[in-house]
């Protein structure tokens, strides 16, 4: 008797489909924590008018230096302004300025790094020596000195941070380009007569920008800290606009009996920094995986 062997029908294997199947992508805990913290902060900043009935600059001198709890949840400052309002509206200022102050150096530094890394030669040498000069100074010293010279105000903060911050992006991108331009796909494009701008934009930029993006996450922390520091030194966003740095500075004189005036904006800075750092680390981890 012949045994009937059941043969399972073999699906014709389709290698492309098999390989294309996306790997399970799970958010790593670091990235998740960073996203949650930062998301909450952003929501608080966006919905500030709904979360608090008081305006950030509305003064109520009869009710100044009110304690925690009561009508003003986080108390008031010496001019009777609601601390919670100032905290939430301050997040709007500081986060916006922080992000924008990273965007400009990111763009300028990356483009410059891309060009000099690819071209090399005299331009490369000159720009890199300039980079060395800027890096030789501590970040804060240079930013504070620049804002001091230019005068306080949002625009001048952007200018100062951009003038100092671009060097990091320039170095990162240049280094990556030096490697990438010797890759055979870049050589192949060159040999094939593809125009230089196209090689830069389509072949090199997408392959080198990841490192700059990762760095920009930690850079936002630095830039927000810089803005808060400038505000504390009276060089930041001019009053009466709310800003965490000036809140800390204003509350300083009452530190002994009204400690919350400085502590609460301080904690806000710490949480922001923590959220951004976690986000940056999470992205690094994510990039390493793939």
């Amino acid at each position, binding site marked *: 008797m012949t045994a009937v062997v059941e043969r399972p029908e073999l699906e014709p294997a389709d290698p492309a489909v098999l390989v294309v199947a996306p790997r399970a992508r799970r958010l790593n805990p670091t990235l998740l924590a960073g996203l949650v913290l930062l998301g909450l902060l952003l929501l608080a900043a966006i919905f500030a008018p709904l979360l608090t009935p008081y305006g950030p600059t509305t003064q109520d001198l009869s009710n100044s230096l009110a304690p925690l709890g009561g009508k003003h949840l986080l108390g008031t400052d010496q001019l009777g302004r609601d601390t919670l309002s100032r905290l939430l509206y301050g997040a709007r200022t500081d986060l916006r300025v922080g992000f924008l102050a990273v965007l400009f150096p990111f763009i300028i530094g990356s483009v410059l790094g891309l060009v000099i890394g690819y071209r090399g030669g005299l331009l490369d040498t000159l720009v890199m020596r300039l980079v060395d000069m800027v890096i030789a100074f501590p970040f804060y010293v240079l930013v504070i000195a620049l804002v001091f010279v230019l005068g306080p105000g949002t625009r001048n903060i952007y200018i100062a941070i951009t003038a100092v911050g671009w060097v990091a992006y320039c170095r990162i991108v240049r280094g990556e380009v030096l490697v990438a331009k010797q*890759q*055979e796909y870049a*050589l192949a494009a060159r*040999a094939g007569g593809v125009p230089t701008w196209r090689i830069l934009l389509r072949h090199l930029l*997408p*392959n080198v920008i990841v490192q700059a993006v990762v760095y920009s996450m930690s850079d936002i922390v630095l830039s927000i800290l810089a803005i808060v520091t400038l505000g504390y030194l009276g060089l930041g966003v001019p009053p009466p606009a709310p800003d965490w740095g000036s809140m800390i500075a204003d509350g300083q004189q009452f530190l002994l009996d009204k400690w919350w005036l400085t502590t609460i904006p301080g904690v806000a800075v710490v949480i922001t920094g923590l959220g951004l750092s976690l986000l940056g680390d999470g992205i690094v981890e994510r990039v390493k995986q793939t």
Partner: protein
Amino acid sequence: MSTPLLQVEDLHIDVPTRRGLLHAVRGVSFQVSPGEALGLVGESGCGKSLTLRAILDLLPHPAEIVRGRVLVDGVDVTALDRAARRKAVSASISMVFQDSMTALNPLMRIGDQIAEAPMARLGYSRSASRVRAVELLRQVGVPDPERRARAYPHQLSGGLRQRVVIAIALSCEPRLLLCDEPTTALDVTIQAQVLQLLQGLRRESDLAMLLVTHDLAVVSETCDRLAVMYAGRVVEDGSIGQLVLEPRHPYTFSLLRSVPDPDEVRQRLLTIPGAPPDLVQPVRSCPFQPRCIFGKPDCGGAEPVLFELGGARHSACHHVDDALSWADLAKVHA
């Protein structure tokens, strides 16, 4: 006789190093006629890859051409400025790179990568170049080309990727294909497939080929003529049949002897002892003499030049005339 497609004349390439100028290529000359396949073999560091890159103006910094000319269709392209040179060369020559892993941009769909050069150089529209990309993929034997054109490089196997690299090289209808060890990164079965593909392409479109490799088996299967390089110079050239059957330079002889023979079961793999000379130092004698099994005391006198042997053959050995007895001599040595 028609003008050769590519002529390299007395090419010298220097590479500045910490120890001094490294004379990596020291007067290499060869030519490739339309439809002809020339193999360039030699061990690592003999200057074969640099020579290839110099033709396309892709020398890695800080290497540079210090003397000699590269002529494409009789036009000296080394005299042109960079943009004109690139245009003149890429019009008829393109290159197949060695490592299909790095020869493809990991972040670009392969269809777009193939379409890029026709769009930039031949003025194809976006849609026309897409059609062309699929057509090229089909030509190099990629199954299901419409869908593969939308894939990213990491989604393809090594063999398919190498086919894509060839498709890119073919995209501007070159008349000469420079191949830098096109099969080294592949396993043997895929190697055979890729070689077959290259052969087929040559027959179909009368494509000339310059194949750089250290694999003599690959060369003898694919090429019409062979140039053997040693220490930055061509030491022997001629037709494949001549060189393989009766080499007239001891280096070629030793190279051929170190190819394992599949019929011989218990054979010790023969090697060439020693290492090539340091090219930072000036070469004053036959550079192969220290490693040559037929070396004689008078080989140290001067560096031999290429002797004309008739039948378009050359050899740079002081004792070319003894070549016929080498096979017997070698037996004694072994």
